[in-house]
């Protein structure tokens, strides 16, 4: 069982300018599984997600305590290069953020950061990534047009392709479909199911049905604490805690 653990979080505490946002969170994130983080707004699920690739480092006044191990190595160890961590743990943001460059340049962006790849290899990688993100067929004939012209759903899949291009091991998704229509959302969800064979995925979502549809494990956060984490069917059919049940049945949120 242990070798299937991709990341493990131990007693994570997080403070914004001294105000605690995460309280003693510990959990395991399993390899090639989709873990969903749910909970009401302000419960700390996005903060938690951003701890997993140290994106919170850039937040003014942020302080982290505890350990997060990636393949057994603490990513908060002072010896560890944060840039390497972010290459291994990719991220897709809530609001799709294509850069105002061409579609090709967007996907190639991460590849061109001190990488030994040739032009040819970059072009190949861009194509594979766009195919993996199920976007290739829609953009193959206009790779050199601005990414800003794509629809919202296409932009988000482009951001996924961009994250895939640098070959991460883990992909963090922060409500990736919250701004999308149902059809675009469905495409993203199918993509997530497809990607988990090769990647470990952690997804924050507000949408309970989405968590139920795409995830293998679900973690419920409330007021900065992890209330429970279990197999998704278990959480949605027979949660151990009253609060979890109240939340998933819509009694509060």
């Amino acid at each position, binding site marked *: 069982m242990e070798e299937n653990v991709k990341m493990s979080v131990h007693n994570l505490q997080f403070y914004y300018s001294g105000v605690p946002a995460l309280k003693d969170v510990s959990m395991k994130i399993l390899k090639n599984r989709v873990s969903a983080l749910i909970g009401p707004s302000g419960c700390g699920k996005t903060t938690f997600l951003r701890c997993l690739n140290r994106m919170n480092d*850039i937040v003014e006044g942020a302080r982290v305590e505890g350990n997060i191990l990636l393949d057994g190595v603490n990513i908060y160890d002072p010896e560890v290069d944060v840039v390497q961590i972010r290459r291994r743990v990719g991220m897709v943001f809530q609001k799709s953020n294509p850069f105002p460059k061409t579609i090709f340049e967007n996907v190639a962006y991460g590849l061109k950061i001190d990488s030994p790849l040739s032009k040819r290899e970059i072009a190949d990688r861009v194509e594979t990534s766009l195919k993996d993100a199920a976007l290739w067929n829609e953009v193959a004939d206009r790779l050199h047009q601005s990414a800003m012209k794509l629809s919202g759903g296409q932009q988000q899949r482009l951001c996924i392709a961009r994250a895939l291009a640098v070959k991460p091991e883990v992909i963090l998704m922060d409500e990736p479909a919250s701004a999308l229509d149902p059809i675009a959302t469905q495409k993203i969800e199918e993509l997530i199911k497809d990607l988990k064979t090769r990647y470990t995925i952690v997804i924050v979502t507000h949408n309970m049905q989405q968590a139920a549809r795409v995830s293998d494990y679900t973690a419920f956060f409330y007021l900065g604490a992890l209330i429970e984490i279990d197999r998704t069917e278990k959480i949605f059919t027979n949660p151990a805690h009253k609060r979890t049940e109240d939340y998933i049945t819509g009694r509060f949120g």
Partner: protein
Amino acid sequence: MNKKLTEKIGFLLLYLAAILVLIFLGIILLDVFSKGIGVLSWKFLSQPPRQGMTEGGIFPAILGTFLVSLITVVFAVPLGMFAAIYLNEYARPGKMTRLIRLAIRNLSGVPSIVYGLFGVVLFVQMMKFGTSILSAGLTLGLLTLPWTITACEEALKTVPKAYREGALALGATKWHSIRTNVLPYAIPGMLTGVILGLARAAGETAPILFTGAAFFIPHLPGSLFDQFMALPYHLYILATQHHAIEKVRPIAYGTALVLLGLILLLSFSAIWVRYRYRQKMRG
């Protein structure tokens, strides 16, 4: 009173205020244009003044203003840009940062004649550049620096945080993200601000008065350490210091027209740069 009527009167007042601005600008432009256009010719633009500045052209003044502006840009733009990048991207909020910002804000309020005096002490005397194009250009550079920094910072602020985060999340270092995913989108905005600052500097008289501008020199400047003639100073002389003010009035207006034209040209190029940038960002 009737609510609708109040609103109408309020709207009318605002409208009049806006129109008034337009009227003043129109009058100034019309006045300078109608009185200056008469002397404007290729000869006027390409020849030096002759006969005690009562005849001939203003070429040395145009060249002088151009050269001084060049020094201003070369000095103030990189310095202002780097300072803005530091302040906006790297500086942590604290006493020091607040002090720097306070200094910048106060510098922009210092009267230009004070910059002139400072330029004399620092560049002309201490650094021994003499009264020269270099000293005057550097003095104007100092004058525009607060504007340049502020404009560059504003331009950096318009670049969404998501571009920075997006790049970092892909494994870029902070500097790589700024260089490849922030600056390219900020530079047009920076340029707009820089050009407007330059337009202001090019029209200044006081800072160059003691630092390098000459009443009249018979030859063109041969190096950056030479004195020079400049459009605004030339205009000042023709309008107030000349022995035959009435006689040279048309030349003075011609000089004013050229200076105004130059500055309008700079302003329009700023508008053009901004327009192109918006087009590009929309994709």
